[in-house]
């Protein structure tokens, strides 16, 4: 970890009580869902019902991971000891170091949360004889989509100074992504992260949504870097 921003963020997040509470809420919700969904659906055995609990857990997972990741980057959830990207422009770090550090720390955090939730997902899938390898594509979709959404938060963090405005725009963006995309016609409908992860759970690799969110993530990172450079120069 040669990137000081990445190192600092990971150290701050691993020691943060707020992040601990977030993790407790995240794992508690997944655990409760898995436990409450334990009874099998007797008398209903269509393909869609076989995976219903598994898919429901994935839905909860992508919503929570995407929100927590973006909220941390936009400082809506202020992690103790973690500095916002805009606060780091006066530190001796280049904008590229800041953006890469923030982006990678967000990706690592998302992966870490997915790993922590994996045993609960395995319990759900193995009990219904769903192959465990099917977790890999769904985890990939969640990771890419949540990272892309988190990068939007990173961008907003350097564009909007007012905290209230940042929060409003952040929530509006989340609504557009999670609700507004459901109104899109096919195949754009698949840009909805919940639809994308459902497709992945059914064995279809949603390449277009993954590419879209990866592009959004990279684009936001580039734009954030440009903004940081202009702020530092100005």
């Amino acid at each position, binding site marked *: 970890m040669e990137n000081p921003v990445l190192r600092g963020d990971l150290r701050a997040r691993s020691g943060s009580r707020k992040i601990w509470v977030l993790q407790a809420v995240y794992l508690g919700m997944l655990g409760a869902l898995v*436990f409450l969904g334990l009874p*099998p659906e007797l008398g209903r055995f269509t393909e869609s019902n076989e995976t219903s609990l598994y898919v429901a857990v994935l839905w909860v997972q992508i919503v929570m991971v995407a929100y927590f990741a973006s909220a941390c980057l936009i400082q809506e959830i202020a992690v103790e000891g973690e500095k916002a990207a805009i606060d780091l422009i006066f530190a001796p770090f280049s904008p590229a170091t800041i953006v890469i550090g923030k982006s990678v720390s967000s990706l690592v955090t998302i992966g*870490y949360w997915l790993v922590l939730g994996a045993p609960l997902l395995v319990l759900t899938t193995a009990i219904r004889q769903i192959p465990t390898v099917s977790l890999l594509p769904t985890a990939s979709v969640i990771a890419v989509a949540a990272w892309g959404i988190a990068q939007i938060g990173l961008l907003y963090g350097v564009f909007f100074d007012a905290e209230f405005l940042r929060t409003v725009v952040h929530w509006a963006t989340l609504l557009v992504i999670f609700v507004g995309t459901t109104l899109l016609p096919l195949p754009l409908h698949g840009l909805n992260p919940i639809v994308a992860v459902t497709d992945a759970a059914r064995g279809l690799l949603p390449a277009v949504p993954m590419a879209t969110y990866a592009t959004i993530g990279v684009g936001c990172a580039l734009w954030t870097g440009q903004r940081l450079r202009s702020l530092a120069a100005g």
Partner: protein
Amino acid sequence: MARCAGPALVGLCALWCLAPAPPSAASPAADGGLEVRLGFDGIVKLGVTVPILVVVPPLARSGHAELEVDAPALGPEIGRVITSTIVPFESVAGAGQVIRAPVTIRDPRRPVTIRVAVNGEPVLQTAVAIAPEQVGDRVLVVLSDDRVGLAALSLLPGRVAVGYVTADALPHSFEEYAAVDLLVIRGLDPALLDSAQQQALLTWVRLGGRLLLIAGPGTRQLAFLDPILPADVGGPRVAPPPVELAARYGGAFPPAPLAATTLIPRAGAREVLGGGGPLIAARDAGAGQVTIWGFDPWRSPVLEWKGRLRLWDEVLGGGAASSIDAAAVAEQLTTGTPLDPGVHAQVGGAILLYLAAVLGLLRWKPTIAGAGAAVVIALAGLGAFSSLAELTRHRSATLVQATVLGPVIGSGEAKAVAVAAVAVPYGGRYKVTVSPDMVADPMTPTGDLRMELTSGGTVLTGVLRPGEPPRPFEAVGAVGLVASASLADGGRTLSVDLGPLRARRVELRWRDRVYSVGDLPAGRTVRELHPDGWIAATADGRSLPELPARVLDGIFQGPNGDAILNGATPVLVGELEGPAPVFALGGAGAPRQRLTILLLPLERR
């Protein structure tokens, strides 16, 4: 469920009867070296167990061999649905084998396939098609040298099918008589029946079968049937035209003398007089009935008598409507197959333990190293939760069974009808073993069921998909049980003898009334009955545990419930303690629920 499939079966039968006959011959078949005798002279009844006898010719190889009988069935699944019955045997090179097995035909449009494999390699195969005229709703089996003469019975109501058999074709277990409505024995040499066949025949009659003996001139007495015969057979006589028969059954009797056999009715026998003496004697034998005709219906002048059809109709009977409807009981079992609460506790505990370990570690060591350790816990959790999921799948498999025992007074035997529902809630393979003295059958045919007949019992294996409803099975057999119950003093005194067994929550049921007797100890018990103790069966305040209540609903509110409740006397019903379960589910830790119901008609004294 089978009851729901009834109209479908009837409809299928009607459609199939219009179809052209299948090209291949019916049983016996000798194609492919296998000789097959299906049913009774090829006669079968849809959805009811019939015997199949396969003569395996001398094989070239020795080793472990299997006979597989694939019987097509109508099922909920689209495509081919086949129930496979497997009979393992040891093949000895150069030696032939005769193998018997029970089989149930549910779809006569497709042939029954019989295969023989030695050491896993198929060596012989044949198929037996079933012609429309081989399927009957009322099946009459005739043991006679004359293989014709009853064609006119096709005029009787219902779809009457007549099969002519030889002594060696008679079943070796009473369950294989299930399809037979009337067995006619005409001129049988008793030496041709082995002891198992004799016992099977005797048990079948006592448990509800109908037997007609033709006492023609020179007929030899069947000593093993002596305990249930309605009359002794005397010498031959020549009777004048029996106008009494014509008056009773219609049709003018031909004006010719009748070669008859003297019948000497025994106590309790019903007799029909004609031509100067008893020509027909009948008596109940347990739940069944034995009739002797002192004349030969295959010979003139009876053959010319039109009233003989009504006589045959009477002796053929209308089926055993007072027996338990297994489908109705199965419906009650499958509605509430529970999931083991221990499974919930186990999974809940594991989830809490995992959360506590991860969050506790992160709270105790809030560093990057602590997060790394949490990842290690999560990776260990992947393996642990996979194992827990597998364990949960096994433990969630359940078997619920109810056995209804109907003792036959004076015989020391009881008919046992056992119904079980096996549930694999998350899907997977199941293995159920049925007692060796019972004949098992699936109630919802599926294509993946394998029934292996072993010395340790019938082993049923199959697969249930996730969320698929519990799969019901039925097993029928006879068990030794000495029990009796009677009412005396005008219905004020109940006397019950349960032998070595005890019974709980005993009730008397009659029509829409119920009398609670309570628990009964082993041995003989006498209770005074109070007339005001009879209450409406639907009255509030009667509290039965869930499973007994549901099973009793299945018995008394099923299609045959009225026939059971509206008999001449009340029936005694209670939960028996002691009898061994009929079905056993493979797999350690699988929870089980079982119930044994005693259903005993009262005698009046």
